[in-house]
């Protein structure tokens, strides 16, 4: 591999997952994950608004899911690029609090504030951006972000919007399974056909690729953007809540804290079941105990319908790729849910091959995104991804029927040209309704946008010839341009997206996020200092009962009291520097105490030893 990293300006690769998100980069040793300040590789895709109004993201937000469930949101990826009417199913299963006025764009309530799904995702992205910046010590502004291969145009656009709101230029959206194949480096084999089976927290993808000397050509992709580990959690959760209802005589499902605690208990059991033959769901809540053992056998039986839902798309994908199962050389497993033994055996049976599981299924997508980032920066020159569009693109014609322009599994960038005319004398605009999907009728497909061709010169019906070009770029996102065939003049095309944010809305959010970023950041620093203060204050209180404390002089004890009081005085001030200063004072005042305590501890330890 020829790598020139001198010129690269830190383009990071980001896996924006349903459950967890990661940021990675590539250097001479290969792609690797950038850890957060707390050392963890995974940033849970959870966002919370603390009671003081501050934004909390990742692991601390995951904790707040238990303490402040009504101020916390998870699995928001399920809502990206979707309208209110097509998330009704999710609303029954997930505690999303939809704000009034969510008809055009979903608004989520978190405490006193409301956020759109791209804004929530932007907060996760901003955390990852910050982790990378702290790691490199320089600003990071460019990223490759992964999306499920089966994401439609609106879902992709929403992901790109999230990047913009987070202050990241999303250079490329890469399909998750394709990214994973890059990370696996299976191109070491000269030629071959591989399948990537990607079952994550909320989405399922299957892609079949042809490898040829560094070229990764996707032959076909299929999937379900609402199928994943979440569904297994919800299944177990429902059973556990039913148990509780009969055992405790209580409907815990209305108690959001109770639900979240139970949810964590079932996830814990689910994860254990991948490694042991039986695990139990344990919950202690409000003085009551619930326990239920689940064997692997029962678990497998319960989740079989969910696992089976992945097999249809796999078969369709093999067919669309124009290959037979025997021709598939390797199968790669991606996504946390592929740790489940039943999933592995189902894949093994279908593909008649032992799947690759060498790389951590949680990390492989981010690592692949980092490789793609290195391709874009020019650092990696011999690899190239040729991806496809997962869904057919068409326009509405007479009688609500779809006329397909770009078929699914077409390599992107892809384009199609269609000539439109007017139907009425003097008509000056033409409305084009673009949909995505495989069905015959418009109403059964996904409406993407309505494009309004304006400024057509008034003339007889049928005389105008407007050539419209539909172009799907390498991100899988559509753009439309129009040209008058007679005059060669470019037409303006006004886009009315059916779902998602308009450009103006995104701009406004970027503006607001910059304004709020400072306030959020300050609030966060204050909160962090208060946590520090809590820790030192409780340590001092404990030390007051220690022998070493009584060995100190009165003067030294007074100094400690004074420092503690001063810290308590500024504790509620909104000034993190002031709090930090007072913490340091307590630190200084207790240095000797700490030292003495250490010595006593050593003496104590030595007492029992014969020298």
């Amino acid at each position: 591999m020829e790598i020139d990293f001198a010129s690269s300006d830190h383009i990071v690769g980001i896996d924006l997952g349903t459950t967890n998100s990661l940021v990675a980069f590539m250097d001479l040793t290969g792609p690797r994950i950038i850890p957060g300040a707390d050392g963890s590789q995974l940033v849970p895709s959870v966002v919370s608004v603390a009671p003081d109004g501050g934004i909390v993201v990742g692991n601390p937000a995951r904790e707040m899911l238990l303490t402040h469930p009504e101020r916390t949101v998870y699995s928001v990826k399920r809502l990206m690029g979707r309208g209110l009417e097509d998330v009704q199913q999710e609303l029954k299963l997930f505690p999303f609090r939809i704000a009034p006025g969510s008809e055009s764009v979903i608004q989520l309530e978190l405490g006193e504030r409301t956020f759109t799904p791209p804004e929530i995702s932007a907060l996760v992205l901003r955390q990852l951006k910050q982790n990378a910046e702290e790691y490199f010590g320089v600003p990071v502004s460019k990223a490759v972000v992964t999306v499920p291969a089966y994401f439609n145009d609106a879902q992709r656009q929403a992901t790109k919007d999230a990047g913009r709101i987070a202050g990241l230029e999303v250079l490329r959206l890469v399909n998750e399974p394709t990214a994973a194949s890059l990370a696996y480096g299976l191109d070491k084999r000269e030629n071959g056909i591989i399948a990537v089976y990607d079952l994550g927290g909320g989405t399922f993808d299957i892609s079949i690729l042809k490898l040829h000397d560094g070229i990764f050509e996707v032959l076909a992709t299929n999937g379900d953007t609402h199928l994943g580990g979440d569904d297994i959690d919800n299944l177990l959760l429902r059973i556990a809540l039913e148990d509780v209802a009969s055992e405790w005589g209580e409907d815990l499902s209305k108690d959001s804290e109770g639900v979240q605690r139970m949810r964590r208990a079932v996830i814990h059991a689910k994860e254990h079941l991948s490694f042991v033959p039986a695990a139990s769901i344990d919950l202690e809540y409000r003085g009551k105990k619930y326990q239920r053992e689940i064997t692997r056998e029962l678990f497998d039986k319960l989740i079989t319908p969910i696992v089976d839902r992945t097999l249809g798309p796999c078969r369709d994908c093999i067919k669309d790729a124009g290959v037979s199962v025997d021709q598939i050389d390797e199968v790669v497993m991606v996504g946390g849910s592929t740790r489940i033994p039943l999933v592995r055996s189902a894949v093994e049976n279908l593909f008649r091959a032992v799947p690759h599981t060498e790389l951590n299924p949680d990390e492989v997508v981010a690592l692949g995104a980092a490789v793609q980032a290195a391709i874009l920066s020019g650092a990696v020159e011999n690899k190239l991804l040729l991806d496809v569009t997962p869904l057919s693109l068409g326009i509405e014609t007479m009688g609500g029927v779809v006329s397909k322009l770009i078929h699914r599994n077409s390599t992107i960038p892809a384009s199609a040209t269609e000539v439109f005319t007017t139907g009425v004398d003097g008509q000056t605009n033409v409305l084009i309704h673009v949909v995505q999907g495989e069905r015959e009728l418009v109403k059964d497909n996904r409406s993407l946008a309505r494009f309004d061709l304006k400024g057509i010169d008034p003339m007889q019906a049928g005389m105008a010839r407007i050539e419209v070009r539909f172009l799907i770029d390498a991100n899988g996102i559509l753009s439309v341009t129009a040209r008058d065939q007679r005059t060669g003049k470019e037409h303006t095309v006004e886009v009315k997206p059916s779902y998602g944010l308009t450009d103006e809305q995104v701009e406004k959010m970027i503006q607001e996020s910059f304004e709020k970023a400072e306030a959020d950041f300050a609030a966060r620093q204050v909160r962090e200092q208060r946590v520090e203060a809590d820790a030192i204050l409780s340590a001092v209180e404990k030390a007051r009962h220690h022998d070493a404390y009584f060995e100190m002089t009165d003067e030294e004890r007074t100094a400690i009291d004074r420092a503690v009081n001063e810290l308590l005085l500024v504790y509620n001030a909104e000034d993190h520097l002031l709090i930090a200063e007072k913490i340091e004072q307590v630190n200084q005042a207790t240095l000797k105490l700490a030292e003495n305590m250490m010595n006593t501890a050593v003496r104590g330890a030595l007492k029992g030893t014969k020298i």
Partner: protein
Amino acid sequence: MTDYYALLGIPRKLDLSMDILQQRYYELSRELHPDRFMRKPAEEQQRALEMSSALNDAYRTLKDPLKRAMYVLAQEGFDIGEQRSKDVPPELLEEVFELNMALEEMRGGDDSARPQLVQAEKSFTNMLAEVDTQIQTLFVQYDASQSRDALAQLRTTLNRRKYIQNLVAEVERTLAAGHESPATSH
């Protein structure tokens, strides 16, 4: 619009070597893909987008023998409109008439038409294979002669193929539907 053959830099033939086509496609993809232009000015990026989408469109068209044939026919001024595939090729009139009767019976819930339909499916599928051989022969003929006559024959043969393919699909659909809701009459 860019000529697909010229864009791929391959000889203008109907009987194409898939290996050469794929090799050229990969070579050009490495040159033209937008990934390669990320650090270039916006106009160059836009041009890469245009060029690589044209390249992908060209490859998609030329690698499929039927799409390739339609493309060449259209370029040579032949009408490739869809409506003509509805006309029954005269030599098939009788068979199609009988088939339609059987299809009607099957749809009406009369499962006794099933063996006839299964037989028809086989015979039309065989016919499809024959037509494909004819198409391949016409490809070679046209490449050698460049005659419009070969193209005209190709046009007719493609219509015939489309027609038969639709028949096979229709039979398959009807048979599958019959499986889902078995007739209750007996």
